[in-house]
């Protein structure tokens, strides 16, 4: 089921394209912004709205790195592992981050606060190493800066602030 708000936002986007299905990425992002991820029931409802089969929509969903088909933590960390960040030592930075969070790549912390998702070049290579936490971009990140970054977001996730269900 989609909420009335979600439905209205998706409807608005349909005007941008001659075919409904072209709005599918945006539709899934709309759901994800509110719920953190895209559950099966949303896939079914969006597919129906956009005249697609759920399987087709799921095929698109699983193709894209930024659509999450399983639950994520309150805060999503996109950690760049591409070449310019690699050359500036992102691997040891990532290992330090994993240690601090007690997770491996792609995992969520036990308290549900953070999911660590390794990602590709964030286009911030002149200020490597780079990472994003939710909408915030951090650059020239050092191991010493990690605690400060994490504490800004711990207990302060976007959905918690919206008052939505985590």
């Amino acid at each position, binding site marked *: 089921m989609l909420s009335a708000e979600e439905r209205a936002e998706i409807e608005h986007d349909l005007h*941008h*394209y*001659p*075919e409904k*299905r*072209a*709005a*599918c*990425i*945006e539709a*899934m*992002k709309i759901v994800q912004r509110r719920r953190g991820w895209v559950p099966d029931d949303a896939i079914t409802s969006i597919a129906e709205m*956009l005249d*697609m089969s759920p399987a087709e929509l799921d*095929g*698109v969903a699983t*193709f*894209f*790195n*930024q*659509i999450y088909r399983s639950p994520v933590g309150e805060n999503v960390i*996109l950690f760049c*592992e*591409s*070449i*310019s960040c*690699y*050359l*500036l030592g992102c691997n040891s930075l990532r290992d330090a981050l994993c240690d601090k969070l007690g997770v491996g790549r792609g995992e969520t912390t036990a308290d549900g606060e953070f999911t660590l998702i390794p*990602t*590709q*070049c*964030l*286009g*911030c*290579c*002149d*200020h*490597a190493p780079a990472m*994003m936490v939710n*909408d915030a*971009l951090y650059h020239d990140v050092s191991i010493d800066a990690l605690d400060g970054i994490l504490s800004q977001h711990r207990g302060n996730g976007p959905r918690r602030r919206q008052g939505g269900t985590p």
Partner: protein
Amino acid sequence: MTDRPLTRNIDPARGPLDLAGYVAAGGYEAAREMFRTMQPADVVGVVQKANLRGRGGAGFPAGTKWGLVKQGPGTSPIKYLVVNGDEMEPGTFKDRMLVEGDPHLLIEGVICASYAIQATTAYIFLRGEYLKGEQLLKAAIAEAYAAGFCGPSCFGSGYALDIILHTSGGRYICGEETALINALEGRRANPRAKPPFPAVSGLWGKPTIVNNIETICNVPGIVRLGAEWFLGLSRSTDGGGTKLYGASGRVKRPGTWELPLGVTVREVFEDHAGGMADGYALKCFLPGGASTDFLMPEHLDLAFDYTTIGKAGSRMGTGQLIAVDDKQDIVGVTHNLIAFFAQESCGWCTPCRDGLRRAERILDGMLRNEGILEDVDELKRHAWLLRPGMTFCALAPGAAEPLQSAIKYFRPEFEAWAARRSAGV
């Protein structure tokens, strides 16, 4: 209009100009004049004469591509311009600078290019992580609509154009123009067969021109100041204009600079990036993103243009060089690059889907001291299997470039890693 048409308005301390500021700086004059004095074919003509080469990596002349769109009675009344802002080539951060630095320049470019090919709608396809760019572009597009610069009658000319921002879901292959078209249509972003080329049959089967953000940002200057001016900006016979060159890696001052097309690599690397950071030396570099062949310090004095870099065995690519320092292990660096391509392969064809994964495993094994001597030749064979013509799109040959050139220049390092297991390390 100065010798830096792309970045003259960019001032990170001030932030981007809004519509009024951009107009006060002479912005939208190109578009306004164009509607008064030029036919669409004139715009195509001047861009052809200016020899504007595509800045997305392949360097195809923009005017020539635009000329492929059939015009006139009996042709499709619906045509599309698609601006490629996927920018996921590792080590590339120039389109971000344009979008965040001067969004109205891009919109003016979109209006001029759309008019040239008589597009009815222009889609700006932006990578999803560029959230700041997304907000700035949304605001700028709204301002342009409100001013009547786009919409039902651009500048009162009667020419109608919709400009729509589309943000992606994140996948490197979406940058490939036919995959991008599938992504825009809401499909899995596998590339399409060519021919038919998008200029004939693209988005929803209509004639479609796909151009990089930097390419489009060059159009207003050409329209306003002409082909001679544009050709005069360049130091190369390879094409007109300036280029956003960049440098990342352990250099003193990483960044992006607008310089005449055809400056030497050394000017970018030493004069602008300041050379390597103290205590580091240059081992090798990728001239134009992850999908270009490594070059060596002896190549620094080459002109940074399509032909010269091509003759040296690499590609100009995005013109954003990645400097590898002497403390780096080439096998580790190559592993990082191949892991990227293996992950981002769309999976459509076997040499790319399976070959890249295999190459990644071999490199990983070598780094764990589990290699065997034959590994080096197997890696070479995979690079050969990924060569142009063997796969459906250019992702695979692009992935082969750093792999084959790393082995070409650093074979003893690869062999040393491969020998570690038998040496009992």
